[in-house]
């Protein structure tokens, strides 16, 4: 699979305690396997996702970051996911500008029952980051 000599990316996922966390739970309950590269950091709502959290993850060594949010229109806090989405878009621009690359960041929308979608998102990101290779922040070490 990997075209990067066994490179195992480190990926941080941020998500809310509602749909995102529940989707992760459902993936577990139904046994949808996904790569162990992903570690989930829970927030009360994706409206709490901060550009600094995303950048900090890259700064600490993440090769990829993504956000798991409730489906658009179904946010438990009305519009938190939409605001989160905007911040992810802003962070992508910054990542592009500083040469890390916005494609290392993504946002996925899913409901709590979509365990398979959660697993698929993890796979998508791991595959994508494997192709992109280690974060340039790391490569300069």
């Amino acid at each position, binding site marked *: 699979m990997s075209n990067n000599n066994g490179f195992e990316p480190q990926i941080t996922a941020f998500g809310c305690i509602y749909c995102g966390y529940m989707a992760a739970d459902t993936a577990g309950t139904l*046994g949808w396997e996904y790569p162990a590269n992903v570690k*989930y950091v829970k927030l*009360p709502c994706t409206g709490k996702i901060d550009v*600094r959290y995303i950048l900090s993850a890259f*700064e600490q060594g993440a090769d990829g970051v993504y956000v798991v949010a409730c489906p658009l229109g*179904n946010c438990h806090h009305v519009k938190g996911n939409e605001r989160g989405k905007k911040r992810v878009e802003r962070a992508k621009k910054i990542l592009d500008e500083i040469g890390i690359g916005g494609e290392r960041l993504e946002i996925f929308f899913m409901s709590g*029952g979509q365990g398979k979608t959660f697993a698929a998102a993890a796979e998508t990101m791991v595959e994508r980051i494997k192709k992109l290779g280690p974060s340039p922040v790391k490569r300069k070490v």
Partner: protein
Amino acid sequence: MAGDGYTQQPNYPITPSPNRPTTPAPIGAVMVVGGGIAGIQASLDLAEAGFKVYLVETKSAIGGHMAQLDKTFPTNDCAMCTISPKLVEAGRHLNIEILVDTEVLDVKGQAGNFTATLRRKPRYVDLTKCVGCGDCEKVCPIVLPDSFNEGLSKRRAIYRLYPQAIPSAYAIEKRGISPCRDACPVNTRAQGYIALVREGRYEDALRVIKEENPFPGICGRICNHRCETACNRGLVDEPIAIKDLKRFIVDQVYAKPRPRVEPVPRTRPERVAIIGAGPCGLTAAMDLVKQGYGVTVFEALPVAGGMLRVGVPEYRLPSWIVDREVQDIIDLGVELRLNTPVTNLDDLFKEGFNAVLIAVGAHEGKKLRIPGVDLDGVMVNTIFLRDTRLGNPPDIRGRTVLVLGGGNVAMDVARTAVRLGAKKVKLACLETREKMPAHPWEIEEAEEEGVEIFPARSFTRILDDGNGRVAGVECVNVKFMEFDSEGRLNLETFEGSEHVIPCDTVIFSIGQAAGLAFIPPDTGVGTTRRGTVAVNPNTLAATRPGVFAAGDVATGTAFVIEAVAAGHRAAESIHLYLQGKPLERPPRALELPVVKLTRAEINQRIEKGEIKPQPRVKMAALDPATRVRTFEEVARGYTEEEARAEAARCLACGICSECLSCYYACGTKAILHDQVERIEEVQVGAVILAPGYEVYHAELSEEFGFGRFPNVVTSLQFERLLSASGPTHGHVQRPSDNQPAKKIAFLQCIGSRDQKHDYCSAVCCMYAAKEAMIAKEHLPGTEIHIFMMDARAFSKGYEEYYRRAQERYGVKYTRCRVSSLKENPANGNLIVRYQAEGGKTNGSSTLVEEEFDLVVLSVGMEISPQVRELGAKLGVQLDDFGFCKTIPFRPLETSRPGIFAAGPFVEPKDIPESVVDASGAAASAEALLAQVRGALARHKEYPPERDVRGEPPRVGVFICHCGSNIGGYIDVPAVTEYARTLPNVVYAENNLYTCSQDSIARITEKVKEQNLNRVVVASCTPRTHEPLFQDSIRAAGLNPYLFEMANIRNQCSWVHSHDRETATQKAKDLVRMSVARVSRLEPLYKIEMPLEHSALVIGGGLAGMTAALNLAQQGFPVHLVEQSARLGGGLASLSAYYAHTDEDWGAHVRDLIARVNAHPLIHVHRETRLVETSGFVGNFASRLRNASGQEQTVKHGVIIIATGAQEWRGEAYGLGQDARVVTQREFAERLTQWEAAPATAPSSVVFIQCVGPAEKYCGRLCCTESLENALRLKKLNPRAQVTILTKDIRTYGFRERVYNAARAAGVVIVRYDEAHVPMVETGQSSAVGGQRSTLSVRVWEPVLREELVLQPDVVVVAAPLTPRADARELAGILKVPVDMDGWFLEAHVKLRPVDFATEGIFVAGAAHYPKFPREAIAQAQAAAARAATILAKEKLHAGGVVAQVDASKCTGCLTCVRICPYHVPRIDATRVAVGGIYGAAYIEAAACQGCGTCAAECPAKAIQLLHYRDDQVLAKVQALFTQPDLIPLAAVEVR
């Protein structure tokens, strides 16, 4: 709650104590019947308002139908996401006691004081011990259709209703005892081991047999298997080959090396002597040794095993099998003394034995007393067989042998003689061929081996050959024979039939008896005339104390399985005897019934394809030519393939087989197979019935093929197919071939609006639209065609949703009932025949046939027989369909005072209306029981909190194995070791189940012992378990926020199960992250704030007054603000508004006004408007201004908006221009006038529907009102021509009956579509009585395809209700939203239908959307109940996870004020912001919902969300990575 254990409470029915006072004090508890969303909502409202709640549910978990749904309309929210938090909340609420598996049997007493009798059905799993790990489910061999997935998938007999179920504990489904088990003398769990064979689990299967029978190898060969005779499979084709399967299991397991048997430690001083090492004696020896007794078995022969070893021939039962199974018993610690006949019983007692079991069997063969029995060559069966088996066979080579006897032993003798080389073997017996006691198959096999049979002979003498040797046996033919009950023979023979059967060897095989020489009469052990030891058949005690007898010696010869049964029983009696307890045991209570399948049920299961007729698999046998030469085993055993195929034929009659696999797998010992039903009582002040509906049984509408055609599914099944956690993981696959369904038809109104149902189920149109859209989202390109009569998109947002289905998703709608449906046998597709819309130009109908991959039947709602029965038991009136009748004007009250009803039990309705009903019913109960509010509510007491601020973190980590769920995939001890190395961690341990009661207590203990100030639990999901663990540290005096969970199950072991090393590494990472975060967490405190215990209700109409009155009855003062001079709102001026249902709403409203005016707690402010409101939940202050401009400020804790709506006044169809064109309400008023003078009534009226704004949203009331008014007119003038021009008739629920009545009365419905809107021409004259001909209506008739021109006397324009003009202004004052049309917008369409997102503000009545009066009342009560959840609290608790502003960083930029979805932040002029400017943002803790959006958005970073402070979140992110030397991004300019 009576009876916490599982003791029986047989005191049913309950008779009231005569001392009980006649008017008892009310009880502050409510029983809610039904655990669906309505029951859950009612329970939560009641519990929050200070009442104890018993939530009774018949199923094993709450959640009802909503939990089965994929999405909910019209927002397409995930149903599980929305209901799951409610389930968890109900599950852990201190004052809600969830009684699952429970039925209500009776309710006695009266409003305020009821006694409910409940049947608590056994769950077989201890709710207090089960942690829901699922280890049991993995080992359960019983598979059955999963009812939660509507039969589309399978589940096990031990199950959790669905993954998110509350309670999360498992349950076992039992139907009864399977007949095979019942028929077996030792109750072998045959169904269990058969299922385990099917699963290929042979060791487990052997374990199951050995639960009851220590001789599986023996019984697998020689048992007479009465289980097979009882087997229900015999009703289909042939019984399961149970014996052969048993043998197969043994073959598989015994082929492997015999595992070492560990001796059982001796724990008791008493010793027991057992005489006889046969199956009975050895079974008893095993049981007693396992009990800890010393056991010695005395055996006269040189081998153990009794008849099994020396009686049954080798070719049927190889010696090594007997030896092995005997050895398994001996190795438990039994002392076996071979070659040791007991000659004197007294010696045993002298030797020190405390009890003796005589189990010597029946080893003495009998001879007839006829001449010649002492001749050479005469033998008896037992000696013949024993000598052969012990390697010393008599030499009968070349002899002609005649066996006398027709039983199984005789067959053994004859066939042994064949194998010993006899020239010829014959067998003669008294019985006719048909009545021979031997098994038919054994007779056949004997004949195959050359044995010649002479049936129906009586033997008179044995002839002498002259040398003292046998020459033959003289016989006579038997005419009649019979043994009487005493065992005496009645015999009639044919005279003169004497003949001789020549032979030189005779072997008697006419029965065996016990040798009882060692118990002469002076031993005190009595014997019977039949030569057996006399025993009490229940206890097996002989006549001398301490002596017992069992097996053949006590009962006469029987089968081995009976000997085993007797051995068990004897051991039990001996144990009781040695313990000094009475030997007679009471009968076991409430055993499950034996399952007898009926022919009808079998046929049904065959038709459904669940049972496929298939004869039993035959076991191979050695061919006769070979077997006569050898003692090799005749039966050859099954191959694995044969055995599993045979096992798969089992019908699993009992459902659970009690194989005990779950019992052994359970790490918390939660399985209770012996649980029995209990009857309990609860005392409650009120009852709320919310038992819900069942979907129509679609197989009853045979024409649609459900149950016959696999690709016809119900809408509920389709819902499961759409669900990501459903049987197909959200892929819409056809049941027949699992292919994607690309073309789907929905047939509407299945079980609704038909000849058997005069009501509309109110939800099907919308769920069909939803399912269609979701299906298209799952698989774009799917074609969907919905066949319907009317699109009942009658509620808020529904019309838009329905349009979206058509316009955005391209769902095709055809208005018709399909005329037929058949299956295309070639591909399983379904051919739907229907009438195309519009017809042809010549006007004739056009029938079209269209083929679909899948057909969905949109099934309606019905009331189940069980619920109807419940209604009858409780004495509440139901209608013909089982729906609950309610009191007019009190839509949530049943006919029995104090019993309320909610949800579809009252009328078919959707989720939000059920939730409204539920809250409304709760309000009714709260008003009834207001004086005892809080009387039974519990409050948890905690020790004082320890102040840990300033202490360095001392973290304790508790890591869970979760049985095998985590421990099976992750090296838990290694993670624990690792945790100990982490900074700040001072303690770490792992637990088998961290959430079990003992582990929870242990956490509390360890926090104290280790002086921990932070705790991490690494286990499962915080969504369900965090509160439990937080509670455990709070109980140790630690603030509950000093806690963090690492989800190493759902996010690790379950999803990385293939790679132990990686999963373990990730678990370490997750623990490290949690430790890093918890070290930075700080205690958070809820502060108590004062609360104004009063309400402001805005609007004095039906809804406002109802809400105000309910709150006042609950004891809360109310300010009722009405802007006009009088109360009553829209209904005040109308009389007899709903004629069809005979509801005089005018009268009700007048009565209500009087009660509101009279109530001391209601302060009515007439001609008053709300000018301004400030404050937040619990502490509002509102400025009111009256007509004269005077202002007053009132304080209150909650607000209810009930401002109603107004009739639309616009220009359409000549409204306002011609006096003959009137609105609905004007027409109703005229009807009142005409009713006084019927002659003046018009003779022709046209109603025009969907007018003005109702072109965009459905007016909800208009269809029903037009039909009601049409009927009123028809009553006045039956010949009046009434035509209703409409797009759809939306008479949802029971309103359908108005539609039916109107059609029956001759009201004509003409449908128009948007392209052909009716035209009204009013001509020149506008005066009533002028030129009448000028009023005409033109409309395009789509069926006839021509324009109709109508010339009515009156045109009624069904003007809908519209939001009040000042609604937006009020919304601005209260900072609550309105939707695009101007209706007030609730917090959540489904589950918070009367709440606003802003806490403490509620909406009721037509301000929310047009409402019928009944609906407005329900909603008003619901708003009152929701308000009471706040007002019932003594103080307001604020704080926790809330946002805080650091004023010194705030620039007052208003970002937070603008973006907060709850309108909480405000600029506080008294706070000093950046640069010393006055006016910093302030966030009221009591109102903040903790989403953190403001904190993330704040440009100055002046806001922090407590518990999620930036440093706390970042600590976790940082801990994720181990590489320390990275290039910092510090140079990057973020903003």
